């Protein structure tokens, strides 16, 4: 099978990127997923259950909101895809529901997940509570500190939060620990990866579960503007799942400009950044070949972003391919720019965005937008979890 932007080839490659670089200990689980995921997720009973939960439990479709005052500021038309209004406060729940339902059909009894900002951990813990399945969430010690409200949520939902103490103690290390757990529990456990990263089929599977974002956007935009196609779709990229979902049904529409905004941290060249496409080189991280921030010696570096969800030294292979092929435009926004963009949105539209989503908003400043343009911006999550960070910045 030849790859397209919407599906990798049979080995999981998007162009040069993807594959399944896993130790043998994971082979059986990953192979099982590879051979079954499409069949399971497009089976009628699965679709019905998935769609019903998205509608009645998550609250989908999420609104596509014309942000008039923000549009005026940029002298263009900006629509916010309100993933922040999902149950649990971010897009992460779309994927968590899909994967937990899939795990049930695979006969798995135990769910593990990694989390950075805690949104994916909360989403997974939520779905596990709903389905009565054991849930263990790995989270870097540093993130446990800076995302305390989400740690409390996970615990309240009955999940066990396991601190990842190795390395930089953030998302990368939580992912390592989750993978090790999976190696040590090879038969009864499913690993719910929270972004479009990991070995094939995860990037494709997660992109498909998140593709509901752009599926809705198309008909919503048609209702509002008469055309299904915007001129731009803008999303922040940590691993890249909200971006993959927001881009998905526009990937094969070349007239739609796809804009990915990475976290520049204190500045791309400050040594404290998470702008993977600008700072990284081809490498293997967490089971796939992609673009990785690393030293000359191939050691993965510790990234920095004010946003825990973007504090990751890689990106999904789909995004590496969008970058490499030129199909996607990759920008980056600093901590400060993003915080400012968040306050700006609060004042103009009465919406407190997640710090991650604030990076997408900050990306708007770098686009030369015209009055006739129609921009869809994926507001991936709400800012409740980031209030402490925002308050610190407000006093400063």
């Amino acid at each position, binding site marked *: 099978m030849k790859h397209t932007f919407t599906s990798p080839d049979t080995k999981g490659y998007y162009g040069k990127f993807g594959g399944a670089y*896993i*130790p*043998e200990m994971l*082979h059986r689980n990953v192979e099982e997923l590879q051979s079954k995921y499409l069949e399971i997720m497009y089976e009628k009973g699965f679709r019905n259950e998935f769609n019903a939960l998205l509608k009645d439990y998550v609250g989908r479709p999420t609104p596509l909101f014309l942000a008039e005052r923000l549009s005026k500021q940029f002298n263009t038309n900006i629509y916010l895809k309100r993933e922040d209004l999902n149950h649990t406060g971010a897009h992460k729940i779309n994927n968590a529901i899909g994967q937990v339902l899939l795990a049930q059909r695979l006969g798995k009894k135990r769910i593990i997940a990694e989390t950075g900002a805690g949104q994916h951990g909360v989403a997974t813990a939520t779905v596990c509570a709903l389905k009565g399945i054991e849930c263990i969430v790995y989270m870097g010690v540093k993130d446990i500190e800076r995302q305390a409200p989400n740690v409390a949520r996970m615990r309240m939902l009955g999940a066990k939060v396991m601190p990842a103490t190795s390395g930089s103690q953030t998302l990368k290390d939580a992912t390592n620990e989750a993978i*090790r757990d999976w190696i*040590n529990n090879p038969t009864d456990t499913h690993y719910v990866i929270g972004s479009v990263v990991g070995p094939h089929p995860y990037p494709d599977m997660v992109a498909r579960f998140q593709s509901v974002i752009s599926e809705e956007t198309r008909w919503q935009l048609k209702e509002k503007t008469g055309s299904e196609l915007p001129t731009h779709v803008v999303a922040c990229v940590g691993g890249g799942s909200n971006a993959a979902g927001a881009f998905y049904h526009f990937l094969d529409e070349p007239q739609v400009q796809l804009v990915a905004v990475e976290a520049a941290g204190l500045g791309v060249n400050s040594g404290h950044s998470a702008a993977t496409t600008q700072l990284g080189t081809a490498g293997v991280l967490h*089971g796939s070949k992609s673009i990785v921030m690393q030293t*000359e010696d191939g050691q993965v570096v510790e990234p920095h972003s004010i946003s825990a969800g973007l504090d990751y030294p890689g990106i999904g292979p789909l995004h590496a391919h969008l970058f490499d092929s030129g199909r996607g435009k990759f920008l980056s926004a600093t901590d400060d720019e993003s915080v400012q963009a968040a306050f700006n949105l609060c004042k103009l539209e009465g919406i407190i965005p997640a710090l991650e989503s604030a990076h997408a908003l900050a990306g708007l400043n770098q686009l030369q937008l015209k009055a006739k343009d129609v921009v869809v911006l994926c507001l991936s999550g709400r800012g409740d979890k980031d209030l402490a960070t925002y308050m610190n910045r407000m006093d400063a």
Partner: protein
Amino acid sequence: MNRIEQVFKNKSNRVLNVYCTAGYPKLDSTLQVMQALQESGADLIELGMPYSDPLADGPVIQHSGSIALSNGMTIATLFKQLKDFRKTVTVPVILMGYMNPVMQYGFEKFCADAAAVGVDGLILPDLPQYEFETEYGAIIKKYGLDFIFLVTPETSEKRVKELDALSTGFLYAVSSSSTTGNDKDFGAVETYLQRLKNLQLKNPVLVGFGIKDKQTFESASKHSNGAIIGSAFVKALENSSDIKADTKKFIANVLS
């Protein structure tokens, strides 16, 4: 005949392969540890190249890798340390590591440099079969290096045979699906090893993960050609002030 083949020709049972981390406990310990292992009676040496994200390794080996990295160990430094090691070390040496640092060094350059200093084989647990067959296997072969695949109790019979066909040197039987350094119930392991034995594989089989002392070494050897000790030896060197003596003591205990 290469060094690895020679080992298994001379000895088909109780072959002892010991893992150590390059640049651990001190940056310049690498050669010292290797020499001490050879003198103590190790038949092969598996030399780990430290990596920031070693997915297949448990906490002990991970920790040794972090120390080695903070000591300044890199692949380039390692090859400098190994430049003349064949003057003193005659046992086979297998480099174990992860794809990312090797790709960054340059896969072909890595194989060329490894072969040039006298390394015998490679273990790269996250190099998959498909990529081995389509891209990397030919390069490894071009430089005359052996490549050792891992199999686990979860690996199907068909796949064990495929991986055995692709491997040269020996086949690495992971004692159970786990990261290194985990404790095992050895009864189940013995059944699995017997199953492997019945497949009449082309390669000798060495058992790794969870082998830590005389008893586990003996049980593993009963149904295979020998075993690989990793975490237990790394731990023994943790606070070592006399690498030679501590290595001797550790290995003597296993082989007693």
